[in-house]
């Protein structure tokens, strides 16, 4: 029975998009780190497969800004976790209902920027029920080069600045009218809120869609975190996507009879025992190339 449920589960996950397959987590336990004053909503555009540059996926990123701290996270993943949490409260198995799954693409990185310490805590969830890594980085390490160009975004006059950051050339538009030196993901350090930022290959972009003055707690969930570094996680993910089933075999090593939905030579989806599944390479195009 357990296997059957898990199979359905994996089947549904893989029907979304295997690269984004993510297991939900319970978000009942958390600690409050601060209180937001502003919540900024961004649309995040991603390109998972560089061989198919026309296939984009989209997530919604929320940036909660408080006096000492800000948090940037995926709203789609949050909705996914919350519906899971609610259904777990009502008995876990009721969650295996496809309607809960169709929440779209989810970015798995959460960033807490501690303005006071000038550093940020990054939480990165690995695919399916993989580990949840956490690491620390220094803030304001981006060397922005401003230019005289301006444009209007959502009624705010924005200035342009460019930078090279971890293998991508980014162009940002920030609003000097908003005295918050923050932005989506790891971006910050400009004299105004970043309302738009995109890389020159058109593979990643964050575009502001909403600005709200609102007070709400900025929280960090009590997961089982594994301390790591950015470089280690990058290696981990490259290995994971190079042979996805091998990765899953490691994750589900206690359950050798887990079934996965594979695509056979003719393109039909067939369940295969994970232990017998062949090699599967999943396209991987991280936001940080270096």
């Amino acid at each position, binding site marked *: 029975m357990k296997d059957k449920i898990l199979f359905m589960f994996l089947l549904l996950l893989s029907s979304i998009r295997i690269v984004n397959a993510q297991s939900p987590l319970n978000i009942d336990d958390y600690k409050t780190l601060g209180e937001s004053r502003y919540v900024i909503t961004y649309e995040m555009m991603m390109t998972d497969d560089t061989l198919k540059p026309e296939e984009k996926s989209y997530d919604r990123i929320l940036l909660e800004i408080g006096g000492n701290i800000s948090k940037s996270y995926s709203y789609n993943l949050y909705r996914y976790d919350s519906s899971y949490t609610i259904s777990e409260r009502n008995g876990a198995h009721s969650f295996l209902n496809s309607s809960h799954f169709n929440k779209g693409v989810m970015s798995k990185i959460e960033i807490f920027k501690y303005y006071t310490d000038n550093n940020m805590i990054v939480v990165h969830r690995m695919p399916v029920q993989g580990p949840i890594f956490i690491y620390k980085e220094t803030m*304001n390490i981006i060397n922005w080069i401003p230019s005289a160009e301006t444009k209007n975004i959502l009624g705010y006059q924005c*200035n342009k600045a460019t930078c090279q950051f971890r293998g991508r050339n980014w162009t940002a538009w920030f609003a000097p009218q908003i005295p918050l030196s923050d932005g989506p993901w790891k971006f910050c350090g400009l004299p105004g809120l970043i309302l738009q930022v995109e890389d020159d290959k058109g593979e990643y972009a964050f575009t502001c*869609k909403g600005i709200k003055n609102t007070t709400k707690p900025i929280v960090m969930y009590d997961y089982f975190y594994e301390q790591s570094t950015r470089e280690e996680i990058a290696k981990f993910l490259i290995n994971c996507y190079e042979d996805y089933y091998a990765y899953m075999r490691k994750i589900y090593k206690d359950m050798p009879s887990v079934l996965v939905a594979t695509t056979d030579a003719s393109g*039909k989806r067939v369940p295969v025992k994970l232990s017998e599944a062949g090699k599967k390479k999943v396209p991987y195009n991280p936001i940080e190339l270096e």
Partner: protein
Amino acid sequence: MKNLFLSIIFILVSSVSQCQIRIEGTVCDIDNNKLPGINVMAFHNKKDLISYGITDNNGYFCLTYNIDTDSIRVTAYGFDYEKKIIDIGSFSRFISIKLKEMPIMLKEVHVKAPAIEQQGDTLSYLVSSFSSKDDIVIGDVLKKMPGIDMDESGRITYQGKEINKFYIENMDMLQGRYNIATKNISSDDVALVEVYENHQPVKMLKDIQESDNAAINLKLKPDAKGVLNILAQIGLGAAPLLWNTELTSLYFSKKCQNINTYKSNNSGDDVTNEFTSFYSDAQSDNTGDMLSVHSPASPQISRRRYLFNNTNSVSSNFLRAVSEDVNFSANVMYYNDYLTKESLSTSTYYLLEDSLLTIKEKNSFSQSANNADATFKIETNKENIYFTNSLNLKAQWKTDNGRTVMSDTSRQELNDKAFNITDKFDLKKNINGKILSFTSINSYNYTPQEMTVKSNLYKNIFVADTNTDELKQSTAFNGFKTYNKLFVCYEAGYFTPSWSTGANIDIQSLESSLKTVDVQSFSNDSLNNNLMWNNCKAFISTGCGYKRKKLKIDLYIPLEFNILIINDKIPKKEETVKRFTLNPGLDMVYDASSRWTVKASYSHRNYLGGMKDIYTGYILSSYNILNRYDGQLAEKSTDNYYLRFAYRDVMKSFFGNIDIFYERYNSNLLLDRSFIGILQVQEMVGHNTLTDSYGLTGEFSKHFNKIRTTVKLKPSYFRTYSSIIQQGDLVDYNYEFIGIKCGVETQLYSCVEVSYDVRWNTGHTITETESYPNINTLSNFLKIKVFPIERMTVTAGFEQYLTKSTSTSADMLFADLYVKYRFSKIDIFLSWCNIFNNTEFKTISYSEINRFMYSYEIRPSEVLVTVKFKIL
């Protein structure tokens, strides 16, 4: 922000070789506490950013630049501190800035949901992204959505294909009469319009039998559910006395849905189309209409312009969900209508050797019609069982009066009645993965008609010595049909084999007689019919579906056996026809990508003609048309080839499709038309005829969310090759048509909304010897809506119709004005239609090799004031 930030210093490229200027300083609050994390910026010309820094833990900042200027502007601004602006001389110096504490409220921007969102096979159109202040009902908004199109009758298509279901909150209350929803549900009450692509309404058949058609679902706003809304409309106008009143009640809840309407008007508002079901299975082919009073075809302009009506209608639609998968629905409706038409027409028939027959006539037509329709349906739609039974009762009785004036006057009066009862039963069950289905459709139809014609056209035509000028044609049609089908299919890997078998019995009878009013019937038998027609069809069909990756193929091969017994009692001729026919078909769908779909299909069909083209006694079907057939059974076959490319990119709100078709139609009979004076005699004669048609239609639409604009383009082309016998001469002709429709709708500015449509088409007929002149038509529709104040909308509408042929042309321009004003919860409308007071509409058209010029009487300049308000 109380901790240290590193100041980031930058240098803006400057061609002027100047020594670097360095402005340092500190930022603190009124109590001299150092402030970290404050953005300090330097501007040249008060606006060009030349340097910036963020204060560190000691409130220290440093700005450097290379610009040659006398003074610069420095601003300091931070989280919860008031912005400070200082203009200072441009030289290296140290400054200290004091900031006042003040919470900052940002100018809010609300997240707009995307206009169209896609999840799997469901597209969700956000109604608020497409609606404007002036929209009243959801139909107004549906028209503007890309990918969705609605024609003047209200029929909805998605990517050029008719929808197969119309749901409100996922329940099908209206059974295809969705005009009731689109014309009565307020656009403010609908949150989303959802399109279910490839919609299979039977849950059990999902993934087994796929459909090409989409369904539409209206998702209501939460506050529109569970409340009873009663809306009233009262309209009065002149001249003559005009009215337009409506009373509507709407109720939608999880368990129950109900819409009741009462509508009455004489102002050209066609409410009777709310009674038409657009579902493909609702169209009945079992009609017995044989006679008609001469009335010209409707002009190609908005129906409101030429409809002289006096309509009263009531309808009640009800659905009750007994449980989640079981529901019962009832739709009961009645209308009566009195309508009149006036026209002048010139028909030109090209006869032998360049001779022309030109008929000029003036036509007056009136109709008094009553229609009643009731449908009761119960449906169970579960994963393992599907059951539905629907019973439909229809009654129609009407009297048509016509007066046709040529050199003399002919009067016609038609009494027409039609009764129909149809029951549809469908049971499907999933037994261990095998789908078993039984369908049975039974209908009975009775249509008696009687037409009296007074005209001196017929003198000496029928019987040499009868000098009558008044004839009475009566017909009575009886038809009973039963269609029964048993179907089995199951899924086996990539394949879904299926078998079906069934029997259809079609019994029809026709009695007709043509008499003089005073004298008894003519002795001549050729003026009477008494015909029985029994067609029994047994069929066995095998089919197979195949689905692999992105490819779906469906093949079906039905073998049919027909026994047709025709008993023509007047010539005392009985004939039995037996035919085996094979009617195979193939459908292929290839989902090339998430955006592209390619479809190709082929089908071959053989069929026998109906009773209506086999009677041997003359029937005066219209005052100047005398019809009969030579008794030879029509045997027809068609070959259809179809290719479709559909593309949609939801993120870009772009939809496009191109449909290409080719049809070859084969018949053993040909229409032979001849004239005795102006009396047309139409007969079918034995002659193998081939009709080839091919064409292309396309539809492209794109919505630009940022500028709130939708653009639609619809090109079409077709060509037909066929033959006709006219006055004994066999003429091969071909007809070519090219049409383009293009429309733009924009709400770029909040105070004005503009829509512009242009339609252009050209058509002409070519025979072996002659090429008839082109008829070109160009229509322009411009609508400008202005919102001068919040509560008011002023709409100016212009319509121009240009028709041009070599010798004749017609140019019509219409202007209309509408003003809407909202007075608390009451909407007041003022409409002034046809401001230029045009009284007739002229048009030219082709049919086969003949040409028709019409001039219709249209509604004069009219003013109507309507008040619309909510009672509950």
